[in-house]
C-alpha cells in the first residue's frame, strides 16, 4: 500500500523501519544491570535494530550469564551449541547470541579449545549433548597442511587428505548419535590464488578448491543430520572473507562480517530444528506485488510487466511463486476493492501469481492485522507461522505492534530490492522438502471448499457425516520417514510430547523391536489429506505406551484423533496388552490438548520419577470406546513384536 490511508492513533509513526535508538536502549539496560531481567524485550529491540548495530548488541548479550537469564525468563527456549573448528572460533559466539536472540532464543555456548575439531568430532558421546554442533572451517583448514614451495597439485593432495579426515570425523560424530552438525564451505582467498603467478595453475587451484567445497557440501547429502552452510553467497555479495591481521595475530580466520552472515544462517538451522519454520507468506499488493495504486490506476494502469520497474515487480512475483511451489502458503492482505483485485489476479497478462497460487485473498478495507488474524483462523495456523510483507511502514509497524508473533518484512519503493528483503532471513528454511510440502497449497485450497460445504450444512455433525472421512493407519514405508520426521519437527499444537525427530531417529524407532511408528493418513470426499499424523508406540511388558502423538492442525476436530486412539486401544487389546499409557509433555503451544487422554477414557497417573516433566495417563482397556461413527477406520499396525506372542497380526 503506497497510498496514505486514514491516519490512525498508534505509537507507530511513519519514518524509518529501523530504530537507531534500539542499541542505546539495550546499552542502558546493560549498564543498569537489567538486561537479564528484561530479556523478553530483547527480540523486539533487535527486530528494529539497524543491522550494523547487531554486532555491538551481540557483544552485550553474550556477556549475560544464561543461568541468570533463565532465572528471570524461564520460558525462553535455551539452545545449547557446541562450537569447534579449525581456527579461533570464539568470535562467532557474540553474533550467534544476537541472531538467536532475534528469534527469542537464548544461546548456551560451549567453545572448544583451539584447533581441536577433529578430536572433538570423533570423541564419544558426552553426557550433556548439545542441540547443535558448529564446526567452522576456513581456508587454513587446507593451507596449514601446505608448505612452500607449493603447486596446485600440492593443494589438491592436502585438500583431498583433509576432506577424507573430515568425512571420517563427521561419520564418527553422526554414528555416535551426537546430533545436528553444521559445516561450512570455505572461501578461497586471493592471498593464496595470487601466490601462483602462472594463470593456468591459478585456474587449476580454483578448480581444486571447488572440489574441496563440493566434498563438504556432499557430506550433507550423505548424513541427514549434517548441514553445510555455503559461504559463497555472502562472499559473492561483498562480505569480506578474512581480515589478514586478526587471521595472522589471533588465528581468527573468518572475518567478523562473515561470521555474522554465518551466524544468521546457523540461527535458521536452529529455527528449523525447533519447528519454528514459518509456513505462510502474506503479501500486500500495491507497491509490493505491483507498482502504483490499483484503485486509482485501474487494472491496466498498474506497473507490472512493461517498463523497468514493471519487470522488477514481475521478478519479485517469480521469487514469491518459487517459494509457493515449495509449500509456502501464499495469501494476500490488501486494502483494495475485492472485485478489482480478482480482475487483476485472473486477467492481467503480466501477473506471474494467479488466484490459484493463493490460499486466501483478503482484499478489503479492514485493518491488516485483523486480516492476518482472519487468514490464520481460516487456515488453522498460529500467528507465529506467518511472514507479512508490505511496502508501507505504517502497515508494517501496525502489524508488528498488534501481532508481535508475525515476522514483518518491510520492502521499500525500490522493487529490485524486494527479493533480497524477502529472502534476507530464511524464514521458510527447513531440512527436507517432502511430497506433503509440494501439495500443501492444493490441500489448503480444498480446505476452503470444505469450509464452504460446512457453511451450507445444518449442524457440525451433519458436516462430519457428509465429509466421508477415511482414516488409514499403517507403519510408514521408507519414503514416508521424511514426512513423519517433518511432522515432529514442525507441529506445535497437537503434539502431545513435542519430541522433534530427524529422519534417522524415526528410522531408528521403526527398526527397534517392541516399538512402532504408525503413520496416520486421511482423506474425504474433497480430497486426500495425505500423511497428517504419527503415533510413537512402545511395548513394555504388558503395557503399550503411546510415547508421542502428533497430528497436523489441518485435520483437528473431525474425530481423526479419537479414531487413532480407538485403533491403538483395539490393537493393544488384541495383542495381549493389559493397559495403554499416554504421555503428555507440556510445551508453550500444546496446552489445548493437555486433557486429550483424560477425554478419551484414560486415568491420570501424574508424574513419573524418570520423566518428571511429563504427565502420564493410563487406560485399563476394560471398556474401549469405538472410533467415531462418521468415519471409516482402516488400521493395520504390521507384524507385532516379539515382546508378546510373536505371531503376525493383521487386524
Amino acid at each position: 500500500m503506497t497510498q496514505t490511508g486514514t491516519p490512525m492513533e498508534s505509537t507507530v509513526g511513519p519514518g524509518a523501519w529501523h530504530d537507531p535508538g534500539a542499541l542505546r536502549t539495550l546499552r542502558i539496560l546493560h549498564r543498569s544491570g537489567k538486561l537479564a531481567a528484561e530479556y523478553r524485550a530483547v527480540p523486539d529491540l533487535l527486530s528494529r535494530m539497524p543491522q550494523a548495530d547487531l554486532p555491538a548488541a551481540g557483544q552485550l548479550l553474550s556477556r549475560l550469564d544464561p543461568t541468570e537469564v533463565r532465572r528471570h525468563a524461564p520460558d525462553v527456549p535455551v539452545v545449547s551449541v557446541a562450537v569447534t573448528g579449525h581456527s579461533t572460533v570464539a568470535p562467532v559466539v557474540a553474533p550467534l547470541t544476537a541472531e538467536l536472540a532475534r528469534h527469542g532464543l537464548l544461546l548456551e555456548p560451549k567453545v572448544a579449545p583451539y584447533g581441536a575439531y577433529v578430536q572433538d568430532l570423533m570423541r564419544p558421546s558426552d553426557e550433556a549433548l548439545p542441540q547443535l554442533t558448529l564446526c567452522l572451517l576456513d581456508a587454513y583448514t587446507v593451507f596449514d597442511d601446505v608448505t612452500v614451495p607449493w603447486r596446485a597439485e600440492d593443494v589438491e593432495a592436502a585438500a583431498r587428505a583433509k576432506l577424507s579426515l573430515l568425512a571420517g570425523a563427521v561419520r564418527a560424530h553422526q554414528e555416535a548419535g551426537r546430533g545436528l552438525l553444521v559445516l561450512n564451505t570455505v572461501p578461497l582467498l586471493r592471498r593464496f590464488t595470487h601466490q601462483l603467478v602462472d594463470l593456468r595453475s591459478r585456474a587449476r587451484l580454483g578448480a581444486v578448491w571447488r572440489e574441496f567445497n563440493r566434498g563438504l557440501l556432499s557430506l550433507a547429502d550423505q548424513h541427514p543430520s549434517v548441514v553445510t552452510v555455503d559461504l559463497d553467497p555472502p562472499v559473492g555479495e561483498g562480505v569480506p572473507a578474512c581480515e589478514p591481521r586478526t587471521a595472522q595475530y589471533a588465528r581468527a580466520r573468518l572475518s567478523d562480517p562473515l561470521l555474522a552472515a554465518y551466524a544468521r544462517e546457523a540461527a535458521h538451522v536452529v529455527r528449523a530444528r525447533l519447528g519454528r519454520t514459518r509456513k505462510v507468506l502474506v503479501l500486500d499488493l500495491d507497491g509490493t506485488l505491483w507498482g502504483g495504486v490499483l484503485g486509482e490506476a485501474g487494472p491496466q494502469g498498474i506497473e507490472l510487466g512493461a517498463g523497468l520497474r514493471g519487470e522488477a515487480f514481475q521478478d519479485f512475483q517469480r521469487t514469491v511463486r518459487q517459494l509457493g511451489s515449495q509449500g509456502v502458503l501464499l495469501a494476500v492482505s490488501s486494502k483494495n476493492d475485492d472485485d478489482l483485485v480478482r480482475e487483476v489476479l485472473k486477467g492481467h497478462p503480466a501477473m506471474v501469481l494467479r488466484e490459484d497460487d493463493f490460499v486466501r485473498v483478503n482484499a478489503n478495507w479492514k485493518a491488516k492485522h485483523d486480516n492476518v488474524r482472519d487468514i490464520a483462523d481460516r487456515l488453522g495456523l498460529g500467528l507465529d507461522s506467518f511472514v507479512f510483507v508490505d511496502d508501507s511502514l505504517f502497515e508494517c509497524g501496525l502489524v508488528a505492534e498488534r501481532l508481535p508473533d508475525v515476522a514483518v518484512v518491510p520492502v521499500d519503493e525500490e522493487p529490485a530490492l524486494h527479493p533480497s528483503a524477502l529472502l534476507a532471513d530464511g524464514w521458510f528454511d527447513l531440512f527436507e522438502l517432502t511430497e506433503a510440502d509440494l501439495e500443501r497449497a492444493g490441500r489448503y485450497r480444498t480446505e476452503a471448499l470444505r469450509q464452504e460445504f460446512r457453511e451450507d450444512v445444518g449442524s457440525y455433525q451433519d458436516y462430519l457425516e457428509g465429509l466421508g472421512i477415511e482414516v488409514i493407519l499403517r507403519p510408514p514405508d521408507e519414503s514416508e520417514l521424511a514426512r513423519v520426521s517433518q511432522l515432529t519437527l514442525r507441529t506445535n499444537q497437537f503434539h502431545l510430547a513435542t519430541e522433534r525427530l530427524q529422519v534417522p531417529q524415526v528410522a531408528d524407532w521403526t527398526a527397534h523391536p517392541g516399538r512402532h511408528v504408525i503413520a496416520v493418513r486421511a482423506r474425504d470426499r474433497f480430497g486426500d489429506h495425505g500423511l497428517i499424523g504419527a503415533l510413537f508406540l512402545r511395548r513394555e511388558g504388558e503395557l503399550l505406551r503411546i510415547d508421542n502423538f502428533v497430528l497436523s492442525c489441518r485435520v483437528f476436530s473431525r474425530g481423526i484423533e479419537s479414531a487413532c486412539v480407538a485403533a491403538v486401544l483395539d490393537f493393544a487389546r488384541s495383542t495381549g496388552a493389559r493397559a495403554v499409557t499416554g504421555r503428555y509433555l507440556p510445551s508453550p503451544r500444546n496446552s489445548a490438548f493437555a486433557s486429550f487422554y483424560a477425554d478419551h477414557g484414560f486415568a491420570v497417573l501424574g508424574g513419573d520419577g524418570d520423566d518428571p516433566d511429563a504427565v502420564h495417563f493410563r487406560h485399563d482397556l476394560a471398556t474401549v470406546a469405538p472410533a467415531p461413527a462418521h468415519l471409516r477406520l482402516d488400521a493395520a499396525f504390521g507384524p507385532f513384536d516379539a515382546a508378546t506372542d510373536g505371531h503376525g497380526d493383521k487386524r
Partner: protein
Amino acid sequence: MTTALADPTEFRILLEEELGLHVDADDLDRPLDDFPDWDSVLLLRLVTVVESLAGRRIPVADLLQARTFRQLYEAVAGR
C-alpha cells in the same frame, strides 16, 4: 559512541558500551590477567570498533602485547 578517545575515561565508556565490560578508573593499571572477563575475542572486537570509530588502522600486534587497560588505551589512541 562518537567519542574520539580523547582520554582514558572515554576509553572506559567505549569498553562498557561496545564490549559490555565495566572497568573502574582504578583498574586501568592492573594486569589484564586480573580480569576473568577479558579475553582475546574482546580484543579483536575492540580492533574493529576502534578502527571504524577512528577511521584509521591501529597496530593489532601492539594491542595483543598490552598488559593493562592503560596500555591498551595507549595503543588504540596512538600514544
